[in-house]
Every structure is written in structure tokens, then in C-alpha cells.
């Protein structure tokens, strides 16, 4: 498997906090890689380093053979790497359709407005937002906003999609639907790097899992291997229910 994204020896410090340190991992084409770890482990920081919101203090991010370390987020999208936000960021007064058009026309293919609208409608249909196209994005429910995050990122026609807790805050039915959508995205040939706290979901979706703790890689491997790893269980012990759930899944 050739590496689509390669993160090498990434490091980032915020004041006295070493948020990410000596982190290396890679994602192959067509792969779903899960990124898990206790709260504050540095997962979202990794996303921000990969897509250019922050520049790393050290290390490299190589995407499709190109070094994209430290380039601006809007340039990262052009390379074919799109993301969603853990805390939803709708363009609140713009309609759902307009939100999606923004994603499409400033995405990898740099489409014209007319072509972008076509892509936006298609993607909105794919994630199930068609009946809300005309509504202001700010009026969507939390599930709707999560789906909009996903739709906008998909509109960019990415090669690799970073999903930051798209399942958080959804009810079980909505989680089921979202998992279905994520599977179908992968079936379309898009690779996925996802952060998720819902163990059941991430264990079943991911091909491989990287576990972060205090900014460092604690473990890496198949979901079953990671779940049986004593170090991982220990890291989660502060969070007893999660540790129990991990055991249950193995």
C-alpha cells in the first residue's frame, strides 16, 4: 500500500504544554485510520497541524508525495485534503446550498459557480440534506450541522477526508445513518482519517487505529490489537467506562 499521507516526527508546543510530540504515522490509499485517545491527548491538534491551521514546531506532513508542512488551510484544500470541525462552524446566515457551494468552488477542483452548484446539490443529496437546501445553515439541528460539515468537506472533492468527531452529539439513529454515509464515502475511493470517541463506531469503521496519549503515539495497529493492548487500557483507565467498553469490544 502506498502512503497517501505521511506524518513524520511532528511536534507542537503551546507555551508550557507539549501538545504533540514525535508523532509519526501514515495513511494508505482507500484506508480508514482511526485516531483515538483520552481527552486532551492532542487529536484535534494533529488535525490542525495536518491541515495548516497551525504550523508545527518540527516535523513534516507529506501528502501525495508533496511536503505540505505549514502551508495555509486554503492551500491544503486545493491539494485534496478536506476536514470537518469538532465544533461545527456553519456559515450561519448563508443557506445550506450556499455553504456547500463554497466548499465546492474553493475545493480541489477550483470549480466555477455554476459547476459548483451541481456538485453541491449532488453531495447534499448524498448526505441527506436535500430538503434543507434553502434553509439558513444556522437553523439546522446539531445533527444537520454535522452533516453540513461533512457535506462541505466532501464538496471539495477530497482525496483524503479528516473527520473530527462527526458522531458526537448524535442520537443512535443518527449515528447509524452517519456511519452508513462514512462507509459509502470510503467506497467512493476517499481515504479517511477520523477522530472519534464512540468506541463501537470507530472500532468497526477503522482499518487501523493510532492511539494518542499526552501528544505521543501510544499504540498503533488493527482495532482488535489496539483494544487488547494493556498500555491503551491503562491510558483510558481514568475513563473507566471507556476502558470497560474497550474490553467488551474485544
Amino acid at each position: 500500500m502506498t502512503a497517501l499521507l505521511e506524518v513524520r516526527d511532528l511536534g507542537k508546543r503551546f507555551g508550557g504544554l507539549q501538545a504533540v510530540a514525535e508523532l509519526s504515522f501514515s495513511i494508505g490509499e482507500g484506508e480508514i485510520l482511526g485516531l483515538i485517545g483520552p481527552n486532551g491527548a492532542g487529536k484535534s491538534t494533529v488535525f490542525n497541524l495536518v491541515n495548516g491551521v497551525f504550523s508545527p514546531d518540527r516535523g513534516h506532513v507529506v501528502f501525495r508525495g508533496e511536503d505540505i508542512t505549514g502551508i495555509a488551510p486554503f492551500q491544503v484544500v486545493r491539494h485534496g485534503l478536506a476536514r470537518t470541525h469538532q465544533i461545527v462552524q456553519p456559515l450561519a446566515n448563508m443557506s445550506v446550498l450556499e455553504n456547500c457551494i463554497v466548499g465546492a468552488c474553493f475545493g480541489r477542483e477550483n470549480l466555477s459557480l455554476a459547476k459548483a452548484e451541481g456538485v453541491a446539490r449532488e453531495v447534499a443529496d448524498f448526505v441527506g440534506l436535500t430538503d434543507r437546501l434553502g434553509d439558513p445553515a444556522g437553523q439546522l439541528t446539531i445533527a444537520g450541522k454535522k452533516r453540513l460539515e461533512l457535506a462541505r468537506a466532501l464538496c471539495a472533492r477530497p482525496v483524503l477526508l479528516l473527520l473530527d468527531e462527526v458522531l458526537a452529539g448524535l442520537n443512535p439513529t443518527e449515528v447509524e445513518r452517519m456511519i452508513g454515509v462514512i462507509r459509502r464515502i470510503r467506497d467512493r475511493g476517499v481515504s479517511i482519517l477520523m477522530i472519534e470517541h464512540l468506541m463501537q463506531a470507530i472500532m468497526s469503521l477503522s482499518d487501523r487505529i493510532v492511539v494518542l496519549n499526552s501528544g505521543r503515539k501510544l499504540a498503533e495497529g488493527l482495532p482488535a490489537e489496539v483494544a487488547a493492548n494493556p498500555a491503551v487500557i491503562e491510558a483510558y483507565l481514568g475513563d473507566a467506562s471507556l476502558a470497560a467498553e474497550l474490553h467488551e469490544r474485544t
Partner: protein
Amino acid sequence: MSPAATLRRPTFWLIVAVALVFALAPLSGNNVELREDLLLAAIYIILAANLNLMIGYAGYVNFGNIVFFGLGGYLCVWLVNSHGWPLLAAALSAGVAVSFLALLFGLGILRLRGAYFALATIGVNEGVKAFVANFTPWGGATGIYLSIEAYQPLGGAAQALWIIYFLLVAVMALSLLLSYGIKTSKFGLGLLAIGQNEDAAAVLGVPTPRYKALVYSASAFLPAIAGALFFFKSAFIQPDDAFDLVLSTEAIVVVMLGGQGTVVGPALGAFLYEELRSTLLTAQAFSNFQLVIAGVLLLVIVLFVPGGLMGWIHRRWPRTKRVLE
């Protein structure tokens, strides 16, 4: 949007119609009083429409927007007076030069956001004003006077006033068409996204630094030409008139009154404000009473109708959104 699609939009024709009314109304009966009234309305429309590109589209409040108007005026009057340039060449050059200068300023101050950006724009205006007030080639604090000969190439003073009026109406129409053109373009969509949430826009791929600098520069071009024409008409320019923060603030009131982010809103707001202003100016009891009204008006709008007149109309009759942009 293709040219053919533009021609089918009512907003385009509305802009053309407004410009024609402005151009033709004072012609009947050679109504100079009406012309002067409409000339001021046109200036307000130009200032507001271009300011709206910043406030309404990109979400950046430019308190010092009048600096473009004043600098354009100075450059034009100076080129005509000291270098004998013809009016059109001087006004166009002033527009290009001020626009370029804005691009440089913009690359610097557009790193700031919110209140800090707003403060920086006041700083730019006051800084330029202080510079000009001490700049001897531009007459320092006394400013520059144009001699009556400057109007000779335009066929004398009386005819020159008409020509300048028509030119200003043209600049007004261009300002509204620019607003309209940007709003219906990919550039405009990117700006609206920046106005909503700049960080999210960047993550979605909007090249935010470039777009912000471009719109700041674009919003300087036509006001600079308007300033050039206006001060050529006055035949006199001095720092206090050219860089008057009162006019800057009035432009903000106009944008908010008409409806920020809409194409026709600033024009509607400017027309109403100018009518209000000319009524109140004649009041004996209180000079500059319009400024008191303007302040109250701004408060009421921000508190109760943040979308302005057009926002209110769009909410009341949602179908008008498609007709009036």
C-alpha cells in the same frame, strides 16, 4: 454569471433605471437645485455602495473609508493644478493610485480583525490627514485652490458642473454594478463566507488574505474617483474637508440603514439619508442636526433591524430576495 444571465436579472435593470432617473431628472427645466441635491445623494450612494463591499460582504468595518475619497480628491486637484492634467486623466489616475495604496495598506492592517481593524482604519485616515496637513506641495493645512481656468477645457464653469454631475452619476452606476457583479461572482461568495466565519472560510479553501486585500483595494477605486470629481467641482480642497470622519460615519449609517450585504440597500439608504439630511439642514434651531438623527438611527438599526431596510423587506416578503439583491 454570464453576461446574458446578468441582463435577465431585475437588479441590473433597476440600477440602469436609477442612473437614468438621476441623469435625466435635473435636465428638464435645467433644475440646478435638484442637480445639487442629487449630486450629494450620488456621492452618498458611491461611498455607501463601496463601503458595503467591506462591511456587508467581507464583514470588516472600515471607519476610515473617507480616506479614499479625500486622497482621490487631493491627487486629482494637485494633478490638474500643478501639472495641468485634463480632468478625466487626473481622476482616473487618482483612482488607480489610491486603489494601489489601499492594497498596500490592506496587506498590513487586514491581519487585524474586529475592533482592532476598525481602529486601524481610523488610524490610517488620521495618519494620512496629518501627513497631508504637513505636506507643502499640497498646500499643507491651507490646502489647494483651483483657478477658474481649470474649467475652461470643459467649456466654462456652468457647463463643467453639468459634466461633473453626469460623471458622478456614471461613477454611482458603476459602484452599484460593481457591488452587483461581485455579489453574483465566486469572489463575492468567498467574501460572504469570510464575513460569516473567516476561519471556516479558510478551511473551506477561500484564499482569505488575497480576497480581503483585493476587496479593500476595490472598495477604494470608485470613491477615490468620486472624491476627485467632487473636489474638482469645489475648486478647493483642504485636509479637514477631505478626511472628514463625520462623512465616514455617515456612510456607515447609510449602509446599515439600507441593508448591509445587499446590492440595492446602500443606494436606498443613501437616498433616504440624503433626503432626511437636506430637510434637517434647513432647520434653524440646530445646525448639523442630521448627525444627532444619524446616531439615533444607527442605534435603532443595530438594536432592532440589523438587516436594515432591505433585510426587513426580505424577511417580510421572502420572494423579493430573488428580485432585489
